[in-house]
């Protein structure tokens, strides 16, 4: 057990990576065996993540130095700076890793029936596991160049999955767009990494954070990093790839893409709060993030109103949801500099982080419902659907839960986190009240969007062409059920969730000094 815990950070990345390339081999034996193998890999990765989470929450940040004899030797003897690749996991990293692994598990469970009759499934599962490995790598690493490599792994495998339905031109088009955005964004990241390396001769985030001067070149690097990660997270003005990719990819892939955009958001937070935590003494960056967030909320919701394709519509609300997280975290970042972090800033960050978790669950559930509707009827045009509630009872119930959660209605988790965001952004000086008014109004509009969908797809008389439609198969229902149960639990007991995992994560995000000290050995 102790051995597992010591090597947990690298095993969490290595296991899906190894599993990814074993999958095609096992696929030769039997397709069923392959599905079981993928699920086993995911369960084991989840178990390791749990182990790591428990340890990090109890004992603080954990480092793992690749290639060092004792795996905690961050600065080699005789050297003044860390030269090896270091994985550094704090409470925020493990929170993100938990989200990624659990959503990947749900996705794999859902795929086993949803993708059943497709060809090329061994490659599909390989890419799915690779995507997971890339996300976990981004979340656990403490090295900037590693961050770039894992970012590229996620974008390559994600794009290949978006184009999975090769028989349709639209998927290739969406994949090309996503790939273009992803590659250019990643190259911006690499350029910023090169700038920082040229100045400080190091790639380690903790070491760079302790040395950073906030010179002109550092500012350029910050702009490039924030721009690239906001682009990959899908915030306005670079959101146009998101509805395309989410609308065209298979539903089981979309929930992985949702978590991969959250991983980019994590990288954005890591850059703003940790890498530049030492020197960021103006509220400008915080306000830029707030403005991006508010614009994303507004544009996402208004564009969602006019859509008539089910998954594309949810894709636009995903843009809005990213906006809520950016708003929460941006308020926290802006309050760091005007000295009110204790009053409401920390609370705002907690709201943003809690919303990351809730967003993955809510949007995940809605995309899976859209996938189930597509699976049963073969259609995703909302104008042609109708009266599905008669035959698809469970799916309808799950859709109602997702609808309530994503538009922030009280018994669900979306309400808990959105309320914190409204409350805290209201207190920000100046303009705070306007921010929270826009956020609340957009949330109401979002309810309108989903009520429209509910009405046109599920309510109404039985249509003739859907008379013999059956509800989704059991494994898909179980996958949706897992998400629904979590949504309700988090909604009923938000305090417990916030106290056990969100609060430590928010504290870890604010505490850049602790992150540096762990690398530099408290020098």
């Amino acid at each position, binding site marked *: 057990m102790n051995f597992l815990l010591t090597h947990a950070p690298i095993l969490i990345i290595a296991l899906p990576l190894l599993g990814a390339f074993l999958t095609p081999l096992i696929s030769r034996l039997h397709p069923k065996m392959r599905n079981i193998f993928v699920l086993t890999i995911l369960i084991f990765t989840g178990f390791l993540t749990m182990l790591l989470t428990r340890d990090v929450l109890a004992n603080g940040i954990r480092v793992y130095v690749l290639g060092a004899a004792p795996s905690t030797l961050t600065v080699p003897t005789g050297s003044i700076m860390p030269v090896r690749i270091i994985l550094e996991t704090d409470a925020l990293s493990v929170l993100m890793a938990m989200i990624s692994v659990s959503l990947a598990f749900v996705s794999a469970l859902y795929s086993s029936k949803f993708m059943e009759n497709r060809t090329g499934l061994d490659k599909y599962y390989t890419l799915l596991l690779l995507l997971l490995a890339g996300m976990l790598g981004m979340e656990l690493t403490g090295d900037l*160049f590693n961050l770039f*490599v894992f970012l590229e792994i996620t974008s390559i495998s994600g794009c290949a999955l978006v184009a999975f339905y090769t028989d349709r*031109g639209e998927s*290739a088009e969406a994949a090309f767009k996503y*790939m*273009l955005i992803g590659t250019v964004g990643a*190259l911006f990241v690499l*350029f910023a990494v090169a700038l920082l390396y040229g100045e400080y001769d190091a790639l380690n985030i903790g070491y760079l954070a302790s040395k950073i001067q906030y010179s002109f070149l550092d500012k350029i690097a910050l702009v490039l990093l924030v721009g690239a990660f906001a682009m990959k997270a899908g915030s306005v003005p670079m959101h146009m790839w998101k509805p395309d990719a989410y609308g065209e990819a298979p539903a089981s892939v979309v929930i992985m893409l949702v978590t991969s955009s959250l991983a980019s958001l994590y990288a954005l937070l890591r850059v703003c709060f940790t890498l530049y935590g030492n020197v960021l003494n103006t509220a400008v960056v915080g306000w830029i993030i707030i403005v991006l967030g508010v614009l994303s909320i507004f544009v996402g919701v208004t564009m969602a109103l006019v859509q008539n394709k089910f998954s594309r519509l949810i894709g636009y609300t995903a843009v809005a949801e990213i906006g809520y997280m950016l708003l929460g975290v941006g308020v926290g970042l802006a309050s760091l500099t005007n000295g009110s972090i204790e009053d409401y800033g920390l609370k705002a960050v907690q709201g943003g982080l809690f919303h990351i978790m809730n967003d993955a669950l809510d949007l995940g559930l809605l995309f899976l419902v859209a996938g189930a509707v597509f699976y049963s009827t073969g259609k995703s045009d909302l104008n042609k659907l109708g009266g599905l509630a008669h035959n698809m009872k469970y799916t309808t119930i799950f859709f109602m839960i997702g609808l309530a959660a994503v538009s922030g209605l009280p018994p669900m988790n979306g309400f808990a986190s959105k309320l914190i965001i409204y409350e805290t952004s209201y207190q920000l000086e100046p303009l705070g009240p306007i921010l929270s008014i826009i956020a609340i109004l957009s949330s109401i509009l979002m309810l309108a969007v989903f009520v429209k969908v509910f009405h046109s797809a599920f309510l109404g008389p039985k249509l003739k062409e859907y008379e013999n439609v059956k509800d989704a198969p059991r494994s898909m229902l179980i996958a949706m059920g897992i998400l629904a149960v979590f949504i309700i639990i988090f909604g009923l007991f938000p305090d417990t969730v916030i106290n056990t995992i969100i609060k430590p994560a928010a504290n870890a995000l604010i505490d850049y000094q602790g992150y540096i000290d762990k690398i530099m050995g408290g020098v």
Partner: protein
Amino acid sequence: MIQHFPFIAVVILIGLGIYACMFKRNLIKIVIGVSLIESGVNLFLITLGYVKGGVAPIYTNAPGTNMVLPTPQALTLTSIVIGLATTALMLSFAVLIYKHYSSIDAKTRRLKG
């Protein structure tokens, strides 16, 4: 002056690449733009790693113990490999788009709004 040439080349390469990505409508030209940006960034990385009179970090051949830290070269190699993968994947998407739409003009598209 001569030592600044690589950096000027970097700026020109990245600028041309971004121009191609933003204003060209031919998908192949967009891919070329992306790979131009990539070459610019790679050139920047490798220029940073150049030390005048530096010794390659091969222990058996080095005269002393002062050797160049090979990190930028390692980074460049990694990024070239990644660049190959992304370019190949983007070109294969362009092929797929051509198969379905019989055109590689970015204007012929169905995903709008």
